[in-house]
């Protein structure tokens, strides 16, 4: 008999006024008992609607049934059949828009906590599982993966399992991409990402850091001189957008990329133990309404800012950030200035002093289907600020595009790739993730990496 509770088993969290002063993980995860109790809420539907919402087709009812029986190790292997990074997905996937959105239990009450159970299984295995990774028989073919983020790592893992010799090229000194430089420690501990990457290395994946493809080697050189049979490009959307308003070059204005990279990758929150500095000051304005904006705001709070404001030009309903992140941010004392937009940043002696904002109201729906924000004349007001973080989006880096003339890109600089295969305009070159779609989610990038791995395998098997 399933557990008919209408609510998910609560996941223990650090108290808001404790966690907003440290970088430890906010959510502490289920115990074995909690995981079993939540797993028992699954009805094990025959038509498996949840799986249809998962970009990497995790066999959700099957692994949850194993958890309900207490077979955690088997549950892990079931997830691993289709997903390379379960500990990551369990934490950062927008489950409410994917698997959990289609859960039958969600019709009356809350959906099964699929993400929470997945996270439990992955963490349980990291602690208790026996690494029994069998290296597949090498098939003698070499594939280069450009970019060690979620798309690249997924593609690398899938190809390695099929016997390909896989070399990943990463521009930074650490693999992981946005999982390392973007998403903060308190949402995704870096030790967990590192463990997932170590598992890929155990599979035989070779990771070359400090290699900026497009500079040190071109795509053509990978194919012609370095002996790779195919290339997957998963370089993400790393180019920050600015607002092009007055005062953006003042000291104290950061792109979200710079702000988060200093903190997450370079560990500026441990300055001076780590050498990379960051200045936040007492009052911080974060512009934007996505997950990146929430991450920046919550990081600023943890670095000691007294006031952290989210300035977003639409209302809370239109915010692209996950509900859970907005909820966590509010609990931690982030102040939301909704329906307002920065006009300019005022400075003094070269440093940020305040942000001039204007109130907005929602008009007719625009191309995105969301109601267009319109400025209310004469409603300008100032927010005092020591620093400003611009988190209004990223676009793909042009380095590869500029050095690979026969690689087709669109007007936003995204690589054009077929959705069903990841194939680009250049034979043997595949692409996926944010570099194709523009900034999206970790799980969609993983799905694209997975699709491309299948196509690369087909392409090279027939070659």
């Amino acid at each position, binding site marked *: 008999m399933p557990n008919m509770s209408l609510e998910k088993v609560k996941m223990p969290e650090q108290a808001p006024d404790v966690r907003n002063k440290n970088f430890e993980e906010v959510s502490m995860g289920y115990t074995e008992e909690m995981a079993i109790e939540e797993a028992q809420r699954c009805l094990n539907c025959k038509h498996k609607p949840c799986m249809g919402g998962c970009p990497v087709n995790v066999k959700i009812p099957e692994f949850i049934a194993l958890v309900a029986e207490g077979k955690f190790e088997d549950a892990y292997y079931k997830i691993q059949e289709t997903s390379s990074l379960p500990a990551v997905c369990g934490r950062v996937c927008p489950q409410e828009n994917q698997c959990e959105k289609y859960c039958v239990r969600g019709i009356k009450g809350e959906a099964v906590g699929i993400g929470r159970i997945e996270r439990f299984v992955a963490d349980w295995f990291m602690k208790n599982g026996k690494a029994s990774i069998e290296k597949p028989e090498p098939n003698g073919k070499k594939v280069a993966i450009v970019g060690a983020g979620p798309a690249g790592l997924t593609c690398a893992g899938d190809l390695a399992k099929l016997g390909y010799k896989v070399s990943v090229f990463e521009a930074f000194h650490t693999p992981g991409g946005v999982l390392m430089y973007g998403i903060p420690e308190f949402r995704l501990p870096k030790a967990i990402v590192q463990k997932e990457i170590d598992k890929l290395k155990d599979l035989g994946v070779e990771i070359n850091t400090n290699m900026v493809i497009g500079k*040190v080697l071109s795509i053509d050189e990978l194919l012609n001189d370095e002996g790779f049979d195919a290339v997957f490009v998963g370089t993400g959307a790393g180019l*920050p957008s600015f607002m092009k308003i007055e005062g953006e070059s003042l000291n104290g204005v950061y792109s979200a*990329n710079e702000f988060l990279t200093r903190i997450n990758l370079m560990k500026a929150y441990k300055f001076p133990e780590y050498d990379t500095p960051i*200045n936040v000051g007492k009052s911080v304005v974060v512009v934007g309404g996505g997950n990146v904006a929430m991450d920046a705001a919550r990081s600023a709070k943890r670095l000691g800012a007294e006031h952290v404001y989210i300035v977003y030009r639409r209302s809370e309903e239109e915010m692209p950030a996950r509900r859970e992140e907005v909820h966590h941010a509010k609990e931690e004392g982030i102040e939301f200035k909704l329906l307002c937009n920065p006009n300019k940043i005022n400075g003094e002696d070269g440093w940020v002093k305040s942000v001039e904002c204007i109130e907005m109201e929602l008009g007719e729906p625009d191309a995105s289907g969301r109601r267009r924000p319109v400025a209310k004349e004469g409603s300008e007001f100032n927010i005092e600020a020591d620093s400003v973080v611009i988190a209004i989006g990223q676009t793909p880096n042009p380095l590869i595009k500029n050095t690979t003339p026969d690689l087709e890109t669109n007007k936003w600089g995204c690589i054009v790739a077929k959705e069903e295969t990841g194939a680009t305009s250049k034979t043997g070159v595949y692409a996926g993730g944010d570099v194709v779609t523009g900034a999206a989610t970790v799980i969609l990038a993983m799905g694209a990496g997975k699709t491309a791995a299948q196509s690369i395998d087909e392409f090279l098997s027939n070659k």
Partner: protein
Amino acid sequence: MYKIVRKEVLNPSVSLIEVDAPYIAKKAEPGQFIILRVNETGERIPFTIADYDREKGTVTIIFQKVGKTTELLDTLNAGDEILDFVGPLGVASHFENVKRVAVIGGGLGTAIAYPQAKKLHSMGVEVDMINGFRNKDLVIIEDMCKQACTNLYTMTDDGSNGNKGFVTSKLEELIKSGVKYDLVVAIGPLVMMKAVCELTRPYEIKTIVSMNPVMIDGTGMCGGCRVTVGGETKFACVDGPDFDGHLVDFDQAILRSKMFKEKEADSLKQHKCRMEGMQNA
């Protein structure tokens, strides 16, 4: 890990290291830079490539001890290794249709100006190199520069090498004596580059400067290195580091260079205290 194959102390605060980095050496061009991180807790810091040897597979950088990273770097010797070394980054310098060029180096900037002079000289261009230092004890790579230009002028602020004056006074003297330059390349402290640009502007001599702002990744990702050029925001790492000096907003660049000054000074002070503590222990 990237091995240091040679180290040379050029003056009490400036050293040269030649690093084993064959992939970078194969592609490096004058004007480009690398980013290094000395150790696990280190910062990522950009250094312009001073020289490269494609056959040996090495890249040379010259650095001045100004902060914690460069202090730490200077504790390493031939045979030691640097944790991370990435490049070549930035756009290579591009010279076309020039017959006579003045290449100006200020202090450590001389090391960055050197590969540009060498490249121009090898193209058959007549190169006047003007290098400036505070005094004669700080003069670096004079012999290397001699080989890389037609005429070398080494200036000192205090005249201790017998040539008193700033690089700008020498350049002005040459221009006034009737030398016609197609191009001036000025590399050094921001105030020096600004002064050179102010000097060449009325003569309408195209002037290229090399910007070296704070940056993290060096690939266009952080945007920390933004420079206003001709009213537009540019990223020094991917759009530069060379820019038309007459269009650069130097006053803003000077302000931006102070963004982390306090923290950097803190970091250096703590580092020095620890080093002294270790020596006294």
